[in-house]
Structure formats: structure tokens, C-alpha cells
């Protein structure tokens, strides 16, 4: 993700706030059924910044998604910031859930983050299975690998 020929978003673009994992968990445990969980996922995706078409390039693409997903990373003062987008609404919302756990966090915090336990708590464990084509696994891996 650090290819010098790759277009990069500006530093300012990386500075946006996300709901933290605890707030998200509270929000999702309140959802009475799948409809509400997925409505919340899509609302979460809607609140995230979008990547402009020139940043939606193959070099930033996360493999393993049936939909297209792109991710950028910035490390600043020991914290890791991400900009990510997808052309599918549910995947973008799932990205929002990952960002809740990783965006603006230190390497140590990101390294101890356990996506499996997290998505289980959210009532979305099925979405993280490696056999799924939503690419959530690859996105979680990409966020972690960016810190190494």
C-alpha cells in the first residue's frame, strides 16, 4: 500500500471521526432483527467519507471481495488512520464497523483487536467467514498489515 506511483488522499482526508467499538456494540445489540442490523450497517457506511473515482484504483483494491473495495492508510504520531470505500453498501458498512475498532488507534491496540470476537458480539459472525465473498476478512487483514 505504499507504492510511490499510487495516488494518495491528502492527510486531512484521513482525519475524520468514527463511532468507537463500544458505541457500535451498544447500537447493534439493541437491534431486534436482521433487518435492523443491516439497516444500521448501511447507515454506518453512509456516514463514512467516500473515495473519489481517481482513488478507486486497483493498487488500493482489497482482493477477495465480490464487490470492489479500496483502502488507504496513514500513520501519524503513532496512530493509524484509514480511508476505505466500497461500491456495495453493506461492505462499506462493514468497513465502518472495522474502522470503529481500528481507526485512530495505536499499533498495539490494532494488533490485539480480534475481529472474530467483535463480529460475533455484533451478531454478524456469519459475515466474517473466509468462505464469504464480502472480503471482510481481507479488509481486516489489510488494516492490520498496514500497521506492521
Amino acid at each position, binding site marked *: 500500500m505504499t507504492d510511490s506511483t499510487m495516488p494518495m488522499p491528502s492527510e486531512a482526508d484521513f482525519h475524520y471521526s468514527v463511532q468507537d467499538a463500544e458505541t457500535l456494540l451498544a447500537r447493534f445489540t439493541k437491534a*431486534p*432483527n*436482521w*433487518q435492523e442490523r*443491516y*439497516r444500521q450497517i*448501511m447507515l454506518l457506511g453512509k456516514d463514512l467519507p467516500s473515495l473519489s473515482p481517481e482513488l478507486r484504483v486497483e493498487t488500493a483494491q482489497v482482493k477477495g471481495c*465480490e*464487490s*470492489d473495495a479500496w483502502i488507504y492508510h496513514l500513520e501519524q504520531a503513532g496512530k493509524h488512520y484509514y480511508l476505505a470505500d466500497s*461500491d*456495495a*453498501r*453493506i*461492505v462499506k458498512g462493514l468497513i465502518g464497523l472495522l474502522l470503529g475498532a481500528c481507526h485512530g488507534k495505536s499499533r498495539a491496540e490494532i494488533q490485539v483487536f480480534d475481529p472474530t470476537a467483535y463480529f460475533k458480539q455484533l451478531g454478524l459472525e456469519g*459475515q466474517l467467514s473466509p468462505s464469504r*465473498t*464480502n472480503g471482510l476478512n481481507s479488509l481486516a487483514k489489510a488494516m492490520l498489515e498496514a500497521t506492521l
Partner: protein
Amino acid sequence: MTQPASPTPNTVTHTATNTVASHPSASAAPDATAVICSSDSEQRNAKIRSQFPALNQLLDGYPLCYLDTAATSQKPQMVLDAMAQFYANDNANVHRAAHQLSARSTLSYEKVRDQLQQFLKAERREEIIFTHGTTESINLVAFGLTAHVSAGDVILIDAAAHHANIVPWQELAKRTGAVIKPIPIDQACRLDVSAYKTLLELKPKIVALCHVSNALGTVNPVAQLVQLAKAQGAITLVDGAQAVAHLTLDVAEIDCDFYVFSGHKMYGPTGVGVLYGRFDVLDNLAPLLTGGEMIKRVSFEATEFGSLPNRLEAGTPPIAEVIGLGAAITFLQTDLTPQIQAYETELINYLQSQLRALGEVHLYGAFDDNIGVVAFNLADEHHQDVGILLDQQGIAVRCGHHCAMPLMQSLNLKGCCRASIGIYTNKDDIDRFIAALASVKDLLL
């Protein structure tokens, strides 16, 4: 976005359509143009359906609604029994060892070849080769023809073809310097016959067609297309993977040189496929795989290959799977009656009309005579979002490019959703699917 009524999972059967009471257009009652299915066909269908144990399950409390038969069909109990019976009683390698078990196993295995000869109306039993699936069958032909293809030879490929009927020909072209030319589809998503006739003037060496498009369900007039290709001296291959579970086949009538399909899309097991080849063409194929079973004599100086069909079946074949396939053929010969074929067509037409009635659904290549498949997108929504939300309700459909990227490119699509039916699908499945899609529409639009 309005809140869709929550279904009560364990009771979602026919009454699931109550969840879309606010969508009069998606009501469970068939509209006047889609009156469907005599009770006779429905009774037959119910009897057939009861033979498929996998269909009888709940997913997160929702009854499974399996509309992904084009990817793989479910298996009737008789196929499962045939394979279990083989392993429990007859398991031995075929064509080897002078013992009773091997003789029994060989007899059962070779009996399926006879069954297939009759099923396809092939002239000779040696024209039936067992493979591991459609993909292997096509690879076997494309590799086997290498010596017969020269630089500059033209290979025509159906633009609606599955990747399995594209990539092996590209590899053949790489080996030989042959040139691949796609046969375009017209605006309505049918093979463009006039463009095809123009391409045939190039005197192609090989013409690779699909019988039924796996992504759209459109059906090609294969007998006519083959006749045109043969008039120009081409070798013809027809991919029948999506046809074999639905149509009554007759390779003599189609008159192609090769016809290929998989067991698992015709209610048989995975891991077994069929290559039918006209004897004289088949006999000239160089074997893709060499080794045991396919030889006449081996020495370190020279090896002599055996004769058809063994020459193209190197190694221990998928014996239990072939026997399972035999049971699937018996199943089809008993149950895929003209009435049931008509019922499948009615279901496809009902599915198309209910999708149109739901509104904001784009259908692709939807014709009255489509086989097994309806391709669609919901408004401008991503097919993956639609697929995930349908999956939440126990609906199994495939969403993606359907291994037909060139076709998706010619439709200017990234992908689409595909609902596909089988011999066990009933009207209730369609109604549940439409109700589920209505709630997806509520969530997304």
C-alpha cells in the same frame, strides 16, 4: 425506507407473502397472465421434491429456499443411496484384478456408460468418456486437438460462454498461434446469428457454443448453429452443463462433434462429468492425461495407448461418482417428463412475471423459453447487497459475474443476481423469494 414487517421465521412457508402485504404487486396470488400449474403437475412436483433431503432444512429459522440449482443441483435420495451402496458393498477398482468385487464394480461402472449412450442417443458406447466435470471435458478436447490446429486458424467462441468454455481455447490458441473470435450476442442477449454467419465465412477450425447460458438461461438453437458451422468444416463443441438437467437431449439431432456436461448440475454427484465425442473425432484426440488404465502396452522404449474409451480415462476414475451419476440418469428418465418440463417453463415464466410485477427490477435476457435461470438486478443496487440480504431470509441465489465476465462486459454490468430452478422447485419457492426480495427492496430503496 419503511420498516418491513418481521417474518416469524418458523412459520414462514406459504404465508411468508404476508410480509409484503403492502406490496399489492408482489402478492402471492398469480396474476391473470401467469396462471400456473395444474394440480397434477403440482402433485408430481411434490412427490419429486420429497426425494431431496437437503431441501428440508431451516436457516436461521427460515426454511431454505434453494434457487441456486444452476451452480449445483441438490441430490435425490436414490443418488445418495447408490453411492453409499457402492462403498458399502461393491468398492473395488475397475478394469483390474480378477476378483469378484472388481468384476461387480466394473460392471456397475460400465453400465452407466451404456445408460449415457441411451440418454444422449449416441451411436456407440465408446463415444462416452467419463471426466471430472465440464471443465475437464473441455480441457480434454482443447488439449487433444492441439496437433490439428495451426497458426492463424480461427476458433469461434460464444460470447455468452462460461469461462470453462473460453480459457481452454485461449490456451490452445497460445500453444498453436490460432486466433480466438467471440460470437457476439445481440441487444436482446441472444446469440447474433447474422454476425455468426459472417464469422463462419472465416472458415473456423473450431466452434465452441453453449446450449443454455449459465448466466442468463437463454437457449441457443444449437442444431441450427452446429449445422452452419459444419457446412464450413468446423469442429463443434457444445457446453450442455446448463441444459442437461432440464432438456431431453439428442446428440444425433444436434449433430455436434462434442457435447459436454457435469454430473452435479443434473442431480448427480460432484467430481464426475461427461464428454460425448463423435467416434472418429474423439479417436483422434491426443490424451490430456496419460498413465494407468489408458495403455495397451508399456515399456521404457515405447508405450502403446489403448483404445476408446479407456484411452481418454487415465488413472482410477471417480467410480462411486459415476455410479451416482447412473442413478441420477435413472431419476431424470423417470421424473423429467414432458409435463414436468412444462411445469419448469411455467415456473420460470411465473418468476419473470413476478419480478416484473415487483417493480424496479432489471431483467437480462428474459425470454419465455429460458431454461432454469432468471438474471436480474434490483434497481441500481449492488448485486452483492441484494444477495446478502436475501441470504438473511434463507434464500440461496448466486450473485456475481457467474464465470461469464465477457458476457457481463457486453451487458455493461459488473454482475447480477441469478435465481435458478430445478426439478424440485415449486411455486411456493418463487413466492417466498419474491416476498424476500420485496423486503430487500424496502431496506435498500
